[in-house]
């Protein structure tokens, strides 16, 4: 028996329900369309940034050669210590496990933990974690210590109760790992503490899963000790990775020219965005390293690695499949520089310098290329970075003689008598004097009620230009200066390059001061004629840098051409091919009659004659005896000028104090500028000895010694023009970095690079793979090394 079909509910109920279902699901399909089709590309990118981690293949920085192709700066392999915070031992956890039978509160465990960490640095690292432990718990604790393989746990006492004693240095904890590391490396506790704090700062947040640089360049011995300790399992979370370090082959040699490198700061990182710098990169700070950073720096290669959500590297074939086999970008090495500096000349300048502070500049008069540039005291760029650098940096910074600055370009001094040649040139240019026009020196120069004394109180009598320069008569130049006036003197001096930066490719050059009428109006409100009288003999407000003086005398030597001083001869690529050759650059022509310049040259040539201001040069008996002998026998005449610049205006009462009794900081600055040979001058050498007293005796022999080296050695067989082709620095095409299957707790351990054995003399060319800062930069900005000499005084 069957009923006719009669639905329980009207069909419209079902229809509405189906329609609602359909409508709601349409919302999902629409959203799916937006997410997958419209914005799909965006999510593909996000997905890729999930699983692609770009490991960096560091580039080799360009080398720096001297003008004969001798390596001055290269790169050497270094051993850097990285730590991964997440893998460092956690003493809180181990203590909680160990003392579990005692059912302690969290706060009690924390208190014991704090005591353990403190005890690590105590002389006696044994501490009682818990007294009066019931016997049953003792056995349990003993069993746990055994099972968990916790070192440094001893249980003392028998019978009813016992004590749990911990040896803090043995119990695995962060502090004990750092302490062990410190002992292995041999670093003082305060330096280590600072490094650890810095690294912990950097690895906050997600950074704790990434290896962070803790100590760089620990040296091979420490590396070997760490590896040995690590193989015993004492140093979990610590890895030693091969990196590169800049090597300044001769230590302090030409430090001010070469400069140094240190870690890039957070601010600079921001301002150099898009130039491929990453946190932790080294950047050229001073000297050539800084000014030629763009050339020396190459481009890092990229090795994209596929990682899973826990940061573990996936096998090679997975990466091949996802990213293709040609995913790696090889690093491009930086360009190498051939400097105009000559190793021998520079060495002579540095060895023969005759004072505490000052500078020596040697320059080719016909090109403007610098052969030597030394500043004293100096520092060792190798010691500026590295875990031991802090005390060194402090001692250098605290030195009252200011070792950081390059005194050849960053310090300006009154030029003293050396400036008289410039005054003379101004007189000649303005036709106020010629070789015959005489002026009378009564021993002073009077202007109204003011009197300027000549150093020769008796007066030189009537003299012309040649004799005036030769005896360095002050009165002659007082009156010439007065006739010239400040503007004409300044105009000629500016032609020589004074009062403006020379444009040498080093940073922080100072322009010096070349006062003119406007300058004095600005400074004093009005110009008084007496001011230029002082300037004419290189005193008063006029100041010059040693380099400016070299440039100016080069112009006198070469017949009137002012060259821009330069340090880089050539740029070469890593294969040894020349990329660019730097030609001499003419800045100005003096426009002084050649004959008149020759006249000045002749006047200056008598400086070493008997009666000349530097006649003592010929008869030195100290370490300059060889130089004196060469001067007497070779027949090479040094054309030059001494200069003694007053540092303080001496009152009459002080004037007759013996030179050696004057306090160091009140002694005069000693100049000597000289070029040679007389007939066809080749190089000019300026020596500036701060507080050196009389120029002829302190600075003169140094200039002579550098010239000596040029004529006896460098000129014959070692000039840039004879530079042999440099051997191409070997470039190694990286094999795929092999990485052993990471063990579970070795996730993300920095891959160890294969550095080929490098011959010490060959430029290192290894491009080891380093762990890099990950694509997502750590939000916490790393502070630059405190005390790092980013801007030393």
């Amino acid at each position, binding site marked *: *028996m*069957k*009923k006719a*079909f*009669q*639905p*329980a*509910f009207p*069909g419209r*109920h*079902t229809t509405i*329900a*189906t329609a609602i*279902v*359909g409508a*709601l*699901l349409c*919302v*999902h*399909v629409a*959203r*799916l*369309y937006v*997410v*997958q*089709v419209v*914005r*799909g*590309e*965006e*999510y*593909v990118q*996000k*997905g*890729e940034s*999930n*699983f692609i981690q770009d490991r960096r293949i560091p580039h080799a920085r360009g080398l720096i050669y001297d003008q004969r192709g001798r390596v001055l700066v290269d790169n050497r392999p270094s051993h850097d210590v990285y730590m991964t915070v997440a893998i460092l031992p956690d003493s809180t956890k181990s203590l909680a496990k160990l003392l579990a039978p005692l059912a302690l*509160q*969290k*706060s009690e465990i924390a208190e014991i933990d704090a005591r353990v960490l403190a005890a690590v640095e105590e002389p006696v690292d044994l501490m009682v974690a818990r007294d009066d432990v019931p016997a049953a718990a003792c056995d349990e604790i003993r069993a746990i210590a055994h099972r968990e393989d916790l070192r440094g746990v001893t249980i003392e006492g028998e019978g009813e109760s016992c004590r749990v004693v911990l040896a803090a240095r043995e119990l695995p904890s962060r502090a004990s790992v750092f302490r062990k590391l410190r002992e292995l490396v041999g670093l003082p506790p305060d330096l280590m503490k600072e490094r650890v704090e810095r690294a912990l700062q950097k690895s906050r947040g*997600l950074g704790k899963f990434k290896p962070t640089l803790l100590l760089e360049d620990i040296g091979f011995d420490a590396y070997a000790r760490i590896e040995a300790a690590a193989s015993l399992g004492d140093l979990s979370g610590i890895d030693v990775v091969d990196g590169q370090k800049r090597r300044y082959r001769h230590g302090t040699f030409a430090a001010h020219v070469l400069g140094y490198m240190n870690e890039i700061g957070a601010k600079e990182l921001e301002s150099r965005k898009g130039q491929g710098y990453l946190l932790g990169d080294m950047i050229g700070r001073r000297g050539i390293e800084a000014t030629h950073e763009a050339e020396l720096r190459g481009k890092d290669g990229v090795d994209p690695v*596929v*990682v*899973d*959500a*826990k940061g573990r590297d*996936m096998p090679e074939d997975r990466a091949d499949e*996802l990213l293709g086999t040609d995913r790696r970008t090889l690093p491009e090495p930086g360009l190498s520089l051939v400097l105009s500096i000559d190793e021998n000349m520079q060495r002579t300048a540095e060895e023969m310098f005759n004072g505490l502070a000052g500078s020596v500049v040697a320059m080719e008069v016909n090109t403007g290329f610098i052969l030597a540039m030394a500043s004293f005291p100096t520092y060792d760029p190798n010691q500026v970075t590295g875990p031991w650098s802090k005390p060194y940096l402090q001692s250098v910074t605290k030195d009252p003689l200011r070792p950081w600055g390059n005194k050849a370009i960053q310090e300006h001094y009154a030029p003293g008598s050396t400036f008289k040649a410039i005054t003379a040139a101004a007189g000649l240019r303005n036709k106020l004097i010629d070789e015959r026009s005489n002026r009378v020196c009564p021993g002073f120069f009077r202007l109204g009620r003011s009197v300027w004394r000549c150093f020769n109180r008796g007066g030189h009598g009537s003299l012309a230009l040649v004799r005036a320069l030769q005896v360095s008569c002050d009165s002659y130049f007082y009156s010439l200066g007065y006739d010239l006036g400040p503007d004409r003197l300044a105009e000629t001096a500016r032609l020589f390059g004074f009062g403006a930066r020379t444009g040498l490719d080093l940073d922080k050059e100072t322009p010096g001061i070349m006062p003119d009428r406007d300058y004095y109006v600005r400074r004093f409100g009005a110009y008084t004629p007496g001011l230029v009288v002082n300037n004419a003999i290189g005193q008063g407000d006029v100041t010059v840098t040693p380099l400016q003086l070299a440039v100016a005398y080069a112009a006198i030597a070469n017949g009137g051409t002012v060259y821009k001083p330069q340090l880089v001869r050539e740029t070469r690529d890593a294969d040894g091919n020349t990329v660019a050759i730097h030609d001499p650059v003419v800045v100005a022509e003096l426009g002084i009659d050649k004959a008149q310049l020759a006249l000045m040259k002749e006047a200056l040539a008598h400086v070493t004659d008997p009666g000349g201001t530097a006649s003592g040069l010929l008869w030195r008996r100290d370490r300059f005896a060889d130089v004196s002998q060469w001067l007497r026998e070779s027949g090479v005449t040094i054309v030059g000028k001494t200069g003694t610049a007053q540092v303080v205006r001496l009152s009459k009462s002080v004037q007759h104090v013996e030179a050696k009794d004057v306090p160091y900081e009140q002694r005069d600055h000693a100049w000597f500028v000289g070029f040679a040979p007389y007939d066809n001058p080749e190089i000019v050498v300026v020596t500036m000895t701060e507080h050196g007293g009389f120029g002829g005796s302190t600075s003169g022999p140094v200039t002579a010694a550098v010239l000596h080296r040029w004529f006896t050695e460098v000129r014959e067989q070692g000039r840039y023009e004879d530079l042999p082709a440099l051997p191409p620095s070997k470039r190694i095409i990286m094999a795929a970095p092999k990485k052993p299957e990471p063990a579970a707790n070795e996730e993300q351990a920095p891959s160890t690079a294969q550095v080929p054995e490098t011959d010490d003399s060959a430029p290192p060319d290894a491009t080891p793979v380093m762990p890099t800062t990950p694509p997502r930069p750590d939000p916490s900005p790393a502070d630059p090394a405190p005390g790092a000499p980013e801007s030393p005084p």
Partner: protein
Amino acid sequence: MTLSTAPESTQRWPLGLIGVAALIPLIGVLNLSSAARATMPDLWFKQLLWLCAGFVAGAAAARLRASTFELLAYPLYAVTCALLVAVLVIGTPIKGAQRWLDLGAFNMQPSELAKLAMILVCARYFSRFEMPGGYTLVALLRPLNLSRPLGLIAFAAYRYLHTRAKHDAAIAAGATEVPNVDPVWLTAVFVGVAVVWFALGALDLARGGFDAKRVLAPIDIVMVPFILVLIEPDLGTASIVLAVAASIILFAGMRPRDLAISSVGVVAVAVLAWNFVLHDYQRKRVTTFLNPEADIQGAGYHAAQSIIAVGSGELTGKGYGHGTQTQLSFLPENHTDFVFSVLGEEWGFVGGALLILLLFALVALMLRGARRATDRFSALMAVGAASMIFWHAFINIGMVIGVLPVVGVTLPLMSYGGSSMITKIIAIGFAVNAQLPRKVT
């Protein structure tokens, strides 16, 4: 239990529904074999076994007489409620929720059973409870009945004791963060409202004379399992339970004016629930749902990674077994709640839209049971079953593609899980059952 005899020739098996119901879990098995490849390579096979078990259970559900289900509805409901109470008392806590009952050989989740029980008991109750022109709100709620004030008092007491116990436990364990005890004023407000309400109800009862209908209300049938599941806590299942009941009531019909009022009421209750009932982690999920980028490593991690997976599939997907989010474990729980992201990543919009289409077909074909059923119980049973499948799919896909907050709701027939799979196939069995003509004996 009486199994029906061999089908008569007039019986038409809904082959379309059975086909779709078979196709979807097979796609699910294929999808699982890719999703769990790295972590649990044989998971797809286990799922296949559960599928077979599910088909047996589903076939039984399809072939049982509807009258048997009508008979079974209340006992099953009672057992379910008992189990839900048991799970709160002796259940195994997993990830902060007591959802599992350890039965020795295997664990069971009574909340899965609650969904089926809810379908049957609502179908049973509302098939007998008819109102011309549709239900009114008053008829459903019976506001003056005593069950709600009593429940409210019980709830206030439970909340107070529960938070107190947690608080004391935390202090005893020396934890740094001690959860707050409900403030006394909150409990007082709860109890105060309940007492006033109770007094009004008692007055009403005294005037009208005692009757079960004057103590209980239809809504109580829904509220008891709903609240029990909610305090496990399992917001996902609780909302499914509620949605199933609501769907059945709405299908049976409500008066338009009452429907509008109840919609407003639902919003009000939702606001109150946000403030007083939801747990911190649930609230956090909702806020991160509104702004997932803000907390990419925390609560938003699932949501963000899931959308990346789906979105990066683009139009045609990365191909089976080639999803990077899936294979490199960036996608958590990709074999349970987030299977749809695996599908979306590896098969793209084409695959995702196809699956949604199939799910729509499944629900529509199940609803056909309601159209063809000759009795109210069968029809409402089919509606309940269809709504359960639908709300599961809707909430799950919604949370995976970032339309809804993340709550623990599986994708029916696709997610891994034995009890989930069996429950869903039994529900489909209900719908098949409703489409078979009833034999009148």
